[in-house]
């Protein structure tokens, strides 16, 4: 039973990161109308910035976190004009163009990381980041303070996002554009500016994700973004592309599934089993569990 509880906590921590990733990805899909396949690469880039700043400031976590968030927002805003040509037409999501653009951005980021940082070797975050002593330990399985920290921050971030979406003026504009871009335009919602706000918000989420991943994984490599990108795309398609609530459920489910497999079978099999489960679901429900919401 302790193993189960420990792995559920670990799984929720991991799952809330998946939820944040899918949410940032879906936000860009719904409001900016792009498939930002390389969003996880942006997040990993910010992990490198956090690592760099931690090294420079003698492990000042606050400065590291702020630098990570700033770099992620900046990277998203810099890439926005590249997508602008597609954004201006706005008749529908131009999947082909935006995906190629986004993959290009992802490759550039991966290459910059492997040439510009730590001679291309994986980077390791200081162990103090994860919080040292385990709160709960059962055999080989443990719950570290870092995992509780990322769970708490993850839950706060996800709830704040949904509050913003449903209770604020920009959130209302996001939902209107997501439902009917042309109708939103006729009402007088500025599409381009609201689109830019969604780049900034998904950048903010990206910075928070980078911080949580740094704490939870303790390391990063240039190829990490691509691995995560596959999972984010899988989760968002299985939930139903653009379906925020679906992404919440499926993201948490995937995190817990992976943690349970790690706890009871083997960590090396968690990816395989997760993707087999997702394959079965997508064959049964090609439009995703919760349906498309573009």
């Amino acid at each position, binding site marked *: 039973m302790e193993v189960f509880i420990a792995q559920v906590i670990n799984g929720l921590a991991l799952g809330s990161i998946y939820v944040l990733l899918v949410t940032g990805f879906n936000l860009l899909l719904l409001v900016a109308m792009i498939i930002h396949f390389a969003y996880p690469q942006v997040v990993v880039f910010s992990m490198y910035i956090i690592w760099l700043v931690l090294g420079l400031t003698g492990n000042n976590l606050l400065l590291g976190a702020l630098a990570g968030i700033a770099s992620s927002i900046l990277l998203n805003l810099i890439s926005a004009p590249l997508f602008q040509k597609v954004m201006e037409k706005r008749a529908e999501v131009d999947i082909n163009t935006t995906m190629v653009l986004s993959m290009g951005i992802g490759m550039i980021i991966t290459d910059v990381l492997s040439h510009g940082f730590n001679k291309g070797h994986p980077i390791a975050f200081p162990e103090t980041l994860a919080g040292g002593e385990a709160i709960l330990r059962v055999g080989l399985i443990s719950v570290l303070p870092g995992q509780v920290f990322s769970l708490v921050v993850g839950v706060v971030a996800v709830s704040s996002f949904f509050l913003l979406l449903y209770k604020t003026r920009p959130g209302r504009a996001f939902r209107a554009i997501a439902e009917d871009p042309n109708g939103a335009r*006729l009402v007088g919602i500025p599409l381009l500016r609201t689109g830019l706000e969604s780049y900034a918000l998904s950048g903010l989420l990206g910075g928070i994700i980078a911080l949580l991943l740094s704490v939870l994984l303790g390391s990063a490599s240039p190829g990490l973004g691509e691995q995560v990108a596959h999972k984010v795309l899988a989760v968002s398609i299985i939930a139903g592309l653009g379906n925020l609530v679906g992404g919440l459920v499926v993201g948490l489910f995937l995190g817990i599934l992976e943690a349970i497999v790690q706890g009871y079978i083997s960590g090396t099999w968690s990816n395989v089993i997760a993707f087999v489960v997702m394959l079965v679901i997508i064959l049964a429900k090609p439009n995703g569990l919760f349906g498309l919401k573009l």
Partner: protein
Amino acid sequence: MAPNDPIGAPPSRALLTIDRISVSYGQVSALKNASVEVFRGEIVVLIGANGAGKTTLLETALGTHTPSTGSIRFKGKAIEGVPVDRNVRNGICLVPEGRGVFASMTVLDNLLLGAHHNIRNADKHLRRVYEWFPILQKRRDQIARTLSGGERQMLAIGRALMSSPELVMVDEPSIGLAPIVVNDIFNILRMLNREGYTILLSEQNANKALRCAHRGYVLETGTVTLSGTADQLLNDPGVREAYLGA
């Protein structure tokens, strides 16, 4: 309802002046040298069949298309090429054809979207809209999808009023509504006009629209073929034959 005669109004009272504009979608021409003028305090109706260019004319005035020739002035200032959100901020609004409410959002959210630029005054406008449309207050937390056709039209009009407009453009409000509801909607437009809103309306339902309007224009394949007071148009043999089924 005896409309007062605005024909003699001095030119300075023109709120919207559309002067010989042409608009095309690629190779297809939607408007050719169309001119329409709306004075403060008027209800003006555009009459025309499907595809005559009514929606294009209203949307162009709102700013979604830039005319290839001609000019548009609102409150004396040239506005062709000005983006929609600036025009809305300036006092133009459009109630789109087919209601165009956001079906997955609540009535209140829909109304607040209309006040996107004007959120500080939202409470004041909300009170007035609820006063005019008590049903919207009753249903404010309901999802718009659950409203009837007439209620959706009221919501779309209420949402437009939330932007504190001077010119309210309404695209085919009667389409798809039961006759008794259509009467309600035209009564609402008359009431709003008495409250001081200037209204530019497009309609296929020429009979009811002309009885509610002061003046009208007939649009045929993108060109204004006839204009005059509502009475003149109602008694015009061509209009009677083509649009009133007489």
